[in-house]
């Protein structure tokens, strides 16, 4: 098991956003987390990466507790994160965006003497090539199309060579075909790099096509976990979330 959470709770004042969530994710798995808006999905990812501190409960990554670690340490231990709204370096080029991730991954953050132009260029170009942005290396990230920005964020995260990748609505805001391209890319990279993936998604076609397992959240709780067919036929899930969408 690569990641497990034990009784994670997050309160915002009187609102319990995440309620006693215990998840077990196997290495190499592609896990989708679905649920209506406000179910606590993004908050759960925040708790795993310590972007937000849990009120109670624990998170274990590769058998070691990470709940108390700062976000940057968790990232350097191998958990990559893509956000619901892409977090890029908008005033820098696509090349520089990946370059910063590579600098961090290869421990050169405090290197104050070697020319940045020669650092890891080959690795950076390989990553840009793998995410299909190798033709626009000198475009500023802030000027890219939304779909390309999503790709770039995935590229930045992959440059850190994570073992667990957390994607928050990776296909939101892009066309169906772009979304499919993006998920195919993620799945391909996951297979190539032996990644474990947790992704939040509202598009059920994407979820059922790409997830090995699905966890369904409702009002802060995980109400069901199983393979796509099991979730599709789960009465409780049908009632609270899927309804007619999956039938």
């Amino acid at each position, binding site marked *: 098991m690569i990641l497990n959470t034990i009784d994670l709770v997050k309160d915002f004042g009187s609102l319990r956003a995440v309620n006693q969530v215990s998840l077990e994710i196997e290495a190499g798995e592609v896990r989708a987390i679905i649920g209506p808006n406000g179910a606590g999905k993004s908050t759960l990812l925040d708790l795993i*990466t310590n*972007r937000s501190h849990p009120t109670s409960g624990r998170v274990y990554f590769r058998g070691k507790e990470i709940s108390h670690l*700062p*976000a*940057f*340490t968790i*990232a*350097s231990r191998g958990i*990559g*994160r893509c956000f619901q709204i892409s*977090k*890029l*370096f*908008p*005033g*820098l*080029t696509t*090349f*520089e965006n990946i*370059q*910063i*991730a590579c*600098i*961090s*991954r290869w421990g*050169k*953050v*405090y*290197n*104050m*003497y*070697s*020319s*940045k*132009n020669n*650092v890891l260029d080959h690795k950076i170009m390989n990553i840009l090539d793998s995410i299909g942005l190798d033709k626009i290396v*000198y475009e*500023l990230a802030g000027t890219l199309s939304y779909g390309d920005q999503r790709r770039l964020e995935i590229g*930045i*995260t992959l440059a*850190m060579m994570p073992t667990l990748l957390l994607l928050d609505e990776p296909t939101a805001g892009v066309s169906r075909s772009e979304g499919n391209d993006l998920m195919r890319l993620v799945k391909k990279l996951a297979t190539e790099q032996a990644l474990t993936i947790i992704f939040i998604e509202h598009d059920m076609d994407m979820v059922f096509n790409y997830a090995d397992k699905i966890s369904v959240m409702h009002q802060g709780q995980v109400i069901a976990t199983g393979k796509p067919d099991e979730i599709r036929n789960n009465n409780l899930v049908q009632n609270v979330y899927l309804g007619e969408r999956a039938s």
Partner: protein
Amino acid sequence: MLQTLVRNKSIGFGVIAIIVLSGLGIVLPAYWTQLLTRVLIMALFASSLNLQVGYAGMLPLGHSMFLGFGAYSFGLLFIKGDLLLIPALLAALFISIAASTIVGYLCLRGDPMTFGLLHLGFNIFLSTLINKWIRFTGGDSGIMGIPRPSLFSDTLRFYYFVLAAVSICYILMRILIKSPFAKVAQGLRENEERLRFLGVNIRRFQLVLFMISGFFAAVAGILLAMLDKGVFPAYISLTRSAEGLMMCLIGGMSSFLGPSLGAAIVVIISTVTSTYIYQWQGLLGIIIIACVIGFRGGILGGRRTQSKL
């Protein structure tokens, strides 16, 4: 040699700049040489500030503190501590780095606004301390009798001494801004949270940058003390901190030489123009307004491309 200079524009420009500045020292009268010396020192001060403001997007509102740390620790060690010039200089640099580490550690907690205000608070506190602790710092009168190196005591020789010191600092800064460290600093300016999720310890990174910036400002402080043959509370005043920001803003924060150009403009306006225009601060204000409205990136600014920074 010539081909190398042509191939590498930065080196070529640097060499030409040093040749031209060296030549100016010979042809200019003493008054202008002295003014040019001040421009060089303030250019170093502004460039040290720009490492934080332009590259990393931080907003240190009290950067004159570090100019003051350098100048006062050098002055006090020499005059009151009876140290020789070189030991006093080295000890002053060491003290300035230690002080910038402590101030940085205390200021770097939370959002940029908190950082800016804490920085300002330290500046006000230290400025008041220096003004009021008359027995130790000389208060308003400052500390007089700061020496120049004996070989460089006259105006022209001291100009070359400053030119050499500032050139070395510029070369070090140029190497720094071409390094992976500076690229990460730009990442910090663009998106702190993304950088955090790439495994960078933001607070430690900012602290290191803060120390480097403080070191160069302290060098400028020591040179300024030698130029004025004394240390004065104005070095550490809020006005001086604001001047530093003006220099960056006017010259352009996204360019390596922008703050230096800004320093030249501010020093010339405040020194030369003040002889002819009584309300010269008004002129400075108009230039700042024009830069903010007309030249958003400053005179040497403009659209960010990969070739810049």
